[in-house]
């Protein structure tokens, strides 16, 4: 088994409390299912959309992205047998229903 990080990018906000509740239910169901199959190493954390970008010349700017579709909203650490399986497992993520995407990145081994 190898480790992979799911980076959750973008995703539309819920338009009503009920839709928010549905979104959350869908996420919880999906993650629970992955956990039951032994793929979750660390459920991860949500990230604040705002932050700072620090560059070599010590310039500090707001960032990291201007466009909300590129903002990473959180991450999860999963285990899978290869990248293909990790990507396949990500395909059930509810974020796709809300115009977001999952970036699947292998954790470097050595």
């Amino acid at each position, binding site marked *: 088994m190898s480790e992979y990080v799911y980076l959750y990018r973008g995703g539309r906000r819920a338009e009503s409390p009920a839709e928010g509740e549905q979104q959350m239910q869908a996420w919880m169901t999906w*993650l629970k299912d992955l956990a039951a199959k032994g793929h979750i190493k660390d459920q991860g954390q949500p990230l604040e959309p705002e932050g700072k970008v620090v560059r070599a010349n010590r310039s500090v700017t707001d960032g990291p992205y201007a466009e909300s579709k590129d903002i990473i909203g959180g991450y999860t650490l999963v285990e899978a047998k290869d990248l293909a399986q990790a990507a396949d497992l990500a395909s059930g993520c509810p974020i796709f229903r809300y115009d977001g995407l999952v970036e699947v990145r292998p954790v470097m081994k050595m």
Partner: protein
Amino acid sequence: MELSEQLFRHESGRIVAVLSRIFGLGNLALAEDVAQDVFCRAVEVWKLRGMPENPSAWLMKAAKNRAIDVLRRERTARTYLPELGRLFASEWTLVPAVNEYFSAETIQDDQLRMMFSCCDPALSEPTQVAMMLYLLCGFSVAEIAHAFLSKRATIEKRIERGKKALARSRTLFDMADSELPSRLSAVHAALYLLFNEGYHGSSQHAVRAELCREAIRLTALLTENPLVSRPETYALGALMCLHAARLPARIDGAGELVSLFEQDRSRWDAVLVARGNALLNHSASGSQLSEYHIEAAIAAIHSNAARVEDTDWARLVWLYDQLVEARPSPVIALNRAIAIAQRSGAQAGIDAIRAIPHSEWLASYPFFPAALAELELRAGRADDARVHFHQAIELARNPAERRYWELRAASTAQP
């Protein structure tokens, strides 16, 4: 931890109410934005970290923090109510003032006051109902349109109109206002309308059950408050619970409508029946017998009858007589005629239907030909019954109704 049903919806009503008292009704949009931020944040955090121990407390705390942030940032950019603007101007008083607003009992009152604000006499009843769903029940415009089978633009206009009226009044309705009694009647009427849309409306079953639940929940806010829990408030709550108790049996396993006579009464919600009976007992004080009282008494007779034959039809006819007198309506007269048929036989029922004044108002009401059809069938005139069932099919408002009468019409063909 599992998410309790409708948690977000109900918390949304609480949060919007308290925030609109803090920001003032002139800044309603700001209150809505803050509430939406809170829910989106909850989704982001909870989906990865799981539900907190006390989700309501989490949401309230997030709303409070967000409100403080906004007040700090927009201290000078916005116009607040003068008495609050002063408190918010200083860092020393801002946080304590906001804390005070978020105490449990004020939040309960805020929801109540918001309900009264929504029932502004300047607004039409459908607008009042839309505003309650929007502000107190966390429905989006699209969800309201879906529930009422209306165009989104129609609901949007209603909400716009409602928000303007609220902004004009600047603050939430003051429960010490001399207008309270008349406003309370308007609140009753709007809740009754909301419930009826759920109970008799034509959108799909799940949505309608939800409207009924919301009407019951908001009515409970009234009955829990001594200031506004009048006998007719209890009667209104009673009629809602006693009717809603039968909802689970109105649709069978195959999704088909089931008439009151054929319902599996073991599927009625015993808890709601008990609650309805208790509310009805509470309502029996004072000298006024409101229409809600009569309707609740009617619902109680049905919901407390273990079998159809246990129904006290004579008393039902008497109650319908009272109701027709209080509110002359062909729909009520039709229900009265059905009760008469049960008490005195099919022909008596048919005669009563034929005698309904202004029955032309029922020309598009599918239950009118349907009731005639059932009684003709019972009187042994299958051919007449079939004709009336086909009229009902023509007028059916949704596929479930249509299928039901198609089955009934087909049954008349059998020997």
